[in-house]
């Protein structure tokens, strides 16, 4: 019976939809790359004289871009040796670390029926608190490092928990509040980076001092690779969220709340406390993403510390259907897109924003399976 259930689940989630959605998004991305390419534009100008040029230019533009993406994200086959060749995949995992952490945070909230789109603000708060500890607190490494990581967790938990508190006590809609909190966090960080609280004393720019060496996440493969120990924190978080949602009593209550707050209340679950707890845990995971940014890759605080991971986290949580392993897979995919986009921009002059397009298209296509089926003329999935 159990085997049957697994088979049914695989059929129902229809992995094919996901694969085709990703494929379709890359195709659309390819079209955009081709349209924006100078050589293609030039060749189209004399299309009727020499149509072959147009097709050649099209092929060069698209294949060049995606090949560069592959070299930047998976394996650089142009590298001199294997050690350099595998560097891209470690880059991918380094990018995937904060994206997945924040995605897990949102997944916890989504499964609990709370539409937390405040990962951006929560990452910033995590990075701010973690960064402050890592820059200014004087302590031995075995105190400083855990304290800095913990500070990130706490920073995110506070910024997220505050939303839960507002919702629990005043009924404020969390979508609106998290959107507003994102902007408040950005401006607060901007403000603090201009004051002595965070600004590096000699700097005229809004930049902090670098974090102390003892507070950094250790690099896993030496200074030639960006991958750091935060990766393991991320893997632990995946396991933790799996346990939380599937095996823990509070996770059970989170999910009950997510599906039916009224019935949860009547069954004696403390709704207000649960809102706060959900948002605090959700924020804490994003806060860890912030810590991984500041202690793992960025090393100094700037207003750009959260990059676009707040948005990536939303799409990753949606793409992973808010399940921990799904989020991990989606996080690695988007990490690869990010890593590949860097190379693509440098080598082929294709702006990295193409990643945002591909990303959002993937989510849209997956959200609407009938659309994908229509595009690829797939038969309708028969539900058991």
């Amino acid at each position, binding site marked *: 019976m159990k085997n049957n259930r697994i088979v049914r689940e695989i059929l129902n989630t229809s992995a094919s939809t996901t694969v085709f959605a990703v494929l379709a998004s890359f195709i659309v991305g390819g079209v955009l790359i081709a349209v924006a390419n100078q050589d293609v534009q030039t060749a189209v100008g004399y299309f009727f004289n020499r149509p072959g040029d147009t097709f050649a230019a099209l092929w060069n533009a698209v294949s060049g871009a995606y090949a560069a993406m592959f070299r930047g994200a998976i394996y650089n086959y142009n590298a001199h040796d294997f050690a350099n060749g595998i560097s891209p995949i470690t880059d991918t995992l380094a990018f995937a670390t904060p994206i997945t952490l924040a995605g897990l945070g949102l997944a916890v909230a989504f499964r609990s029926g709370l539409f937390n789109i405040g990962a951006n603000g929560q990452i910033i708060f995590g990075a701010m608190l973690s960064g402050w500890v890592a820059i200014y607190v004087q302590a031995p490494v075995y105190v400083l490092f855990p304290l800095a990581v913990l500070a990130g967790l706490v920073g995110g938990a506070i910024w997220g928990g505050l939303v839960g508190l507002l919702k629990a006590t005043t009924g404020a809609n969390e979508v609106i509040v998290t959107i507003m909190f994102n902007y408040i966090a950005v401006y607060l960080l901007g403000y603090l980076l201009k004051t002595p609280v965070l600004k590096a004393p000699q700097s005229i720019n809004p930049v902090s001092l670098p974090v102390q060496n003892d507070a950094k996440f250790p690099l896993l493969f030496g200074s030639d690779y960006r991958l750091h120990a935060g990766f393991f924190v991320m893997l632990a978080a995946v396991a933790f969220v799996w346990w939380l949602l599937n095996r823990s009593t509070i996770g059970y209550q989170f999910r009950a709340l997510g599906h039916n707050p009224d019935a949860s209340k009547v069954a*004696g679950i403390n709704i207000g406390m649960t809102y706060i707890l959900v948002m605090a845990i959700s924020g804490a995971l994003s806060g860890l993403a912030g810590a991984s940014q500041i202690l793992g890759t960025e090393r100094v605080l700037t207003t750009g510390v959260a990059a676009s991971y707040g948005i990536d986290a939303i799409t990753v949580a949606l793409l992973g259907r808010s399940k921990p392993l799904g989020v991990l897979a989606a996080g690695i995919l988007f990490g690869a897109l990010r890593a590949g986009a860097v190379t693509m921009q440098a080598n082929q002059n294709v702006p990295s924003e193409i990643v945002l397009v591909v990303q959002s298209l993937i989510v849209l296509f997956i959200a609407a399976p009938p659309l994908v089926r229509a595009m690829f003329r797939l038969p309708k999935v028969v539900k058991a």
Partner: protein
Amino acid sequence: MKLELRGITKRFGAMVANDKVSLTVQPGEIHCLLGENGAGKSTLMNVLYGLYQADEGEILLDDEVQKFAGPGEAMAAGIGMVHQHFMLIPVFTVAENVILGHEPTKFGGVLDLKQARDKVRELSNRFGFDIDPDAIVGELPVGVQQRVEIIKALISDAKVLVFDEPTAVLTPQETDELMAIMKQLRQAGHAIVFITHKLREVKEVADRITVLRLGKVVGEAKPTDTAEQLASMMVGRAVDLDVNKGAPKLGKKAFVVEGLNAWNEAGTQVLFDVSLDVHEGEILVIAGVQGNGQTELTEVILGAHARTTGKVSLDDQDLLGKSIKQILDLGLGFVPEDRTQDGLVGEFTIAENLILDRSDRKPFAKGPSIQPKVVREFAQEKLKQYDIRAQSIDSTAKQLSGGNQQKVVLARELSRDLRLLVASQPTRGLDVGSIEFVHDQIIAARDSGIPVVIVATELDEATQLGDRIAVMYRGKIVGIVPADTPRTVLGQMMAGVA
């Protein structure tokens, strides 16, 4: 106008909701469509009204075949509907509601609300309704809202009127008034379809009766047939309409409410000086028309109401000010009025729903972790004990029929060590078989020495289940009377007359 339905069949996937149903209604006639919940009455009417398209069969008005692509076309053809769940927009005025869909306009689509108001006044006067066209519908009493719904059907000049379970929300007095209105409409030459499962009403107004069971017409009945005859046609087997219960064996006074006042979120007082007590082994029924404070009273007992004064105690322990969790721990079993909204998590499995109130307690939890094996064993046991019909304990609650959903709720609530059982309208929307099962469970709980409080809106259920009946009207207890009090007296109390 004569209405005729010929061989209507409507399928939803594999389920046949209507199977070759035929029906004729003459002008100046009230035709009752009698059947249990789920017999296919509402589906049939939605086909007539253009909300659903029939798979087979045809609709005829004055012997002409009609095709309705949507309700707009059905309305234009002269069909009006008084819906069970009012199709009114709460934030709109009466006039705005009544004209919606065929609005009178001045130049260029500008609403002519004056014309609408005049029309409402005119119809309102003709039937003696006394409705202010500028009142906001959501602020009107339910009985008045229904009259707005009737005006809405009449204003578009409907000749065929469908009343879908119209008395469910009314007081006995309002029900009588509605019956009078229906007779008045019959007099005026309307063809009326009256959908109901209440035998008393059928016998009062019906000219002809068609009985539906499991989507099929099982036959015609006469208004002169006895209630038992009608019921057994409806259910398909001999039915004993009485509840079998022995005399109560009263224990000590265990549950006491004294001078209870409560206010809702908006600050309006909803309970006024409510006092009652229930003995061990006794069923006290709170009777009344829906919306007279019963819901709030049960919420106060559960601990879900914030603003209260007075006293509520169980086994000499004060309940007011305690959290829901604490009160459940003191031994309250609670069957909410709306099981899909408040009783179950639809997306959860049966097994998960059965531990909704105890997910963090032993034996279902060990420390912070849930024990899936224990949960599943418990669910298997309850599935058998309560005869819950489902594929497995992994079926989700929303896949279950209403009766089986209620069994899941009962199984969960009765499996704790109870000191008090509170059940709100525990049989609402259930089929006769499930009603009997639920009643038996409640009586068994009483006989095991638990004080029981039942909220009932139907007089039959109140008199059958109750050992005593407390009647509520506008947040007050009008009186607490023995269960054999005559219906007319109870009806007057429910209407606040006595």
